[in-house]
């Protein structure tokens, strides 16, 4: 008799499984979790802390907060930050001071660990929430974070 019992139980479990998928089939419109990605670009908002790429914010006078202390360069495990600096005469104080020439960021080598941003004492670099990082040429992934002709924001000290 267990032969027929097995068949009965087997069919019952199969129907139970089908009821689960069937339920979702009927509610498929509501339950769809797919994002219509390129269409919803306008409404798509990433979380504030999302690590997209490292950026260096500039204010309206084309000034940034990077003093060139190279702490980020040291903190980076992959060598994706390179800072080219020079000692120049500060026009305000007239003293020789460390100034960045280029803050180079290799996005292609970055693992988004966030250690550089933790290490930065002046909050010069931040995370941007941009995640569309693909480019046609690998060279484009090497970015210069400070804008051309930008200066250190006055009052930012190491």
């Amino acid at each position: 008799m267990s032969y027929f019992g097995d068949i009965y139980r087997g069919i019952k479990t199969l129907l139970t499984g089908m009821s689960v998928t069937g339920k979702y089939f009927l509610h498929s419109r509501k339950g769809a979790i797919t994002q219509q990605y390129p269409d919803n670009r306008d409404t798509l908002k990433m979380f504030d802390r999302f690590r997209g790429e490292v950026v260096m914010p500039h204010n309206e006078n084309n000034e940034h907060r990077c003093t060139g202390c190279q702490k980020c360069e040291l903190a980076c495990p992959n060598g994706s930050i390179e800072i080219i600096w020079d000692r120049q005469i500060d026009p305000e104080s007239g003293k020789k001071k460390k100034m960045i020439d280029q803050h180079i960021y290799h996005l292609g080598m970055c693992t988004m660990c966030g250690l550089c941003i933790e290490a930065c004492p002046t909050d010069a670099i931040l995370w941007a929430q941009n995640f569309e990082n693909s480019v046609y040429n690998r060279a484009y992934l090497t970015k210069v974070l400070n804008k051309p002709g930008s200066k250190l924001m006055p009052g930012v000290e190491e």
Partner: protein
Amino acid sequence: MDTTTIKSNFKSEEYFINMGPQHPATHGVLRLLLTIDGEIIKKVEPDLGYIHRSIEKMCERDSYQQIVHLTDRMDYLSSHINNEAVCLTVENALQLEIPERVKVIRTILGELTRLASHQLWWGVMGMDVGALTTYFYGFRDRELINDIFEETCGARLTMNYNIPGGLMFDIHPNFVQRTKDFITHFKTKLPEYDRLLTGNVIFQKRMKGVGILSKEDAISFGASGPVGRGSGYSCDVRKHHPYSAYNQVTFNEVLKTEGDSLARYQVRIEEMWESMAIIEQLIDNIPEGEYKVATNAVIKLPKGEFYQKVETARGELGVYINSTGTKNPYRLKFRSPGFSNLSLLNHIAVGGKIGDLVASMATLDLVIPDIDR
């Protein structure tokens, strides 16, 4: 005709087949060299090294803060727990006093990671035995956990949220509410997992009595995590060597004695319930306080050897650091659960069919970067 002449007349020929490195069932670049007689598996030889990145060697080059983010890339499904393991080792070596708040947050995040990992495993498990829909149901629920991670840690998979001394930044204000919402949501969905897959007669037939691993073998192969516990080997590090806030919570160590694929499957399903129970106990009373203790910018470990083990979603992860007192470890070794669990694949798959191999490999829950490192 007696059997010997039949045997010689119908002699079957064994042949080799390469399963992988590009194969849907190996979930990564694992190559299995199978010796097959018809459909019966005679021998399984795993061939590793396809994504070896020499993480352990890279660790010798990096500072202790930098090591943490490399562990994200080992077992990427329990990256938070991996981070925690390294941080705990360094903190123990430095004998830092970690705030209660950090411990509780780490525990909650660890359990969430375990849940996410098990959800993904469940989906993939179903897919490996042919039920493709489970994959999407598993991912649907995992997505909510990933949102929690993304909001608090900034990333969905490779979080790097722990640092030696605490957390990189405090939890997001929405964290508690989101976690609670997830728990209430998932409590209604987990029984559905059972109804869809666990109870299914085909699934039961595929899993029961397949890939049997005895307790003795589990111990001698160094099995840990749900694989060991499915064979009745009590090996939960959270229970036996509690770290972080695991000594503050009550939970059961799920043990099954059958040792077959179904037992390992059920251990994971029940572990999801336990994980939810742990989170529920902690989420309402996260103590106030600092989210990290200050460490030197350059951490130097005292001379000596340090070892710390934690329970990842796959089993016991051990971190061994041999320090000579400099800012880099002299030698760092990860005892990864996937590696020992893979080593018993040959033992449990021989004599089964190709379908059995796929099913029992899925219950081992292998993550190839964890094996190759």
